[in-house]
């Protein structure tokens, strides 16, 4: 799917320029530039602590950048509240999934649809999520936190899809999943993309992510060390060994 891609010339929906961010005195990002084009899957690779999660949080407004800017559909969103950024159509599926305990699968999905005021549209989206993840339909009245890891990941993605996002930010969707479920998850991400979703995917499993993505960035110590079309990064075994650790 990566050989001939019209997406390469598609419009840039999300752009980070010179973004710096940190927690207190610890610098996590030292000026990074990232572009995500409409219809693409872009992957952010790197070891633990490289700044991948921080990058996503900076985009979705959960971490405020100390320098640089984030633009979404040509609009500067650097200083916006996380809730306002979400309303613009950027959906963040956080690391660890964050399924709400004590609430059913359906109630968790309703949270995703909170900003959708049109009840008919909400129902339609929920049916769409159930079509993508039939297991959620079967378990809709169960406590979401009692689902298996893979099912929780689907619920977290389904919840984000309820927002009707233009861009999905996925943070380590394969983390903690059994190998078969990892492949299932990747298949779902690919399918979402084929159905039109633009995705920024953070992954530790570099090989898998590069098989899926159109374009990749390699982060190390809060700086982008390498970037390029996924097939090129994938072909370069030295990259995989030096930076991706497996």
């Amino acid at each position, binding site marked *: 799917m990566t050989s001939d891609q019209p997406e390469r010339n598609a419009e840039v929906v999300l752009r980070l320029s010179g973004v710096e961010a940190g927690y207190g005195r610890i610098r996590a990002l030292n000026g990074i530039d990232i572009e995500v084009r409409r219809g693409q899957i872009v992957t952010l690779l790197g070891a633990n602590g490289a700044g991948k999660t921080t990058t996503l949080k900076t985009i*979705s*407004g*959960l971490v405020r950048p100390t320098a640089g800017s984030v633009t979404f559909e040509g609009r500067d969103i650097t200083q916006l*509240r*996380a*809730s*306002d950024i*979400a*309303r613009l159509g950027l*959906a*963040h599926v*956080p690391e660890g999934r*964050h399924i*709400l*305990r*004590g*609430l*059913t699968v359906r*109630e968790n999905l*309703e*949270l*995703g649809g*909170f*900003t959708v005021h049109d009840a008919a549209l909400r129902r339609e989206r929920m049916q769409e999520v159930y079509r993508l993840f039939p297991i959620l339909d079967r378990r809709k*009245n169960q*406590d979401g936190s009692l689902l298996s890891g893979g099912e929780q990941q689907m619920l977290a993605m389904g*919840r984000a899809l309820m*927002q009707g996002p233009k861009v999905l930010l996925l943070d380590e969707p394969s983390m903690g999943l059994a190998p078969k479920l990892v492949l299932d998850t990747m298949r779902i991400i690919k399918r979402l993309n084929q159905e039109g979703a633009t995705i920024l995917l953070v992954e530790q499993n570099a090989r898998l992510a590069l098989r899926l993505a159109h374009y990749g960035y390699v982060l190390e110590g809060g700086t982008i060390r390498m970037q390029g079309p996924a097939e090129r990064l994938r072909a370069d075994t030295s990259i995989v060994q030096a930076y991706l650790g497996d």
Partner: protein
Amino acid sequence: MSQHDSVTTRLSARIAAQFQTPAVRWGGIALILVFLAVLPAVFGQYATVIMTNALLYVVLALGLNVVVGFAGLLDLGYAAFFAVGAYTIGILTLEFGVNFWLALPCAVVGAAIAGVIIGGPTLRLRSDYLAIVTLGFGEIVRFSARNLAITGKASGLSGIGQPWLFGWHIATPTDFYYVFCGLAIGAVIVSLRLEDSRLGRAWLYVRHDEDVAEAMGINRVAVKLAAYVIGAIFAAIGGAFFAANLGAISPESFSFTQSVLILMAVILGGMGKIPGVILGAFIVILGPELLRNLGELRLMVFAVMLLLIMLFRPSGIWPKRGTRS
């Protein structure tokens, strides 16, 4: 203990299930209303006064429940808003000769403004910081009341007039009892409506996981501030009628112990569960009264009972709400 816990859970769930059918529920509500209506005639004035106090605590506990139960914010200075309501009525009616019914909206607005002033900067912080700030706020309000001339310093304000309502002079303890019945019923209705509202669902999500709620488009600061202000308004209304009922208020009515007592009603009944919170308010007020013939020991026995309840039902007396279908 877990065995015991599951038994009590099942028992209370079965009791709650009795209220599930509409006929039984409306029957129960009708019974409660009839009981409230005839109480002064049947049980006499002493019981009426105690019940008035209990109903005041129902209003206060339901107000604090919006903050603690619905939005999940710990507030240790809730009595401050109660004080703002009471003192606004006292000052406006006594010093400025304002009619009670005109002073009442001022009390509400005053408490709402106080809620924004305290909540605005602190609700951005984590919940435990808020607990400390609210604790401080409670003390600041009480100390101000004790030191300012306009609030009558330590002796407080007395001679607060009793209001008229369309030719009805609300004067006797029985009159006030019915007023507080009305306030408590109003507080219950507003609480139920809030719980079912869009804002209520936003509180639910923020209480569970504020980062996720924010990432799903819910402005957590605005939503928490709304809870804080609504809670403050409940307390101010309670405080206003409290002042009119007693005719005199002093700083000691609004101490930290008062805040803790209201918080206890909320936690005891079960945070976020409206019938539980009502029950909690009745327990903290009526409990010591019912144990009166134990003499000296009554407060100790009461404390032990509370400890036992919390030990066996840490999430409150009222059973957990079944997940909605």
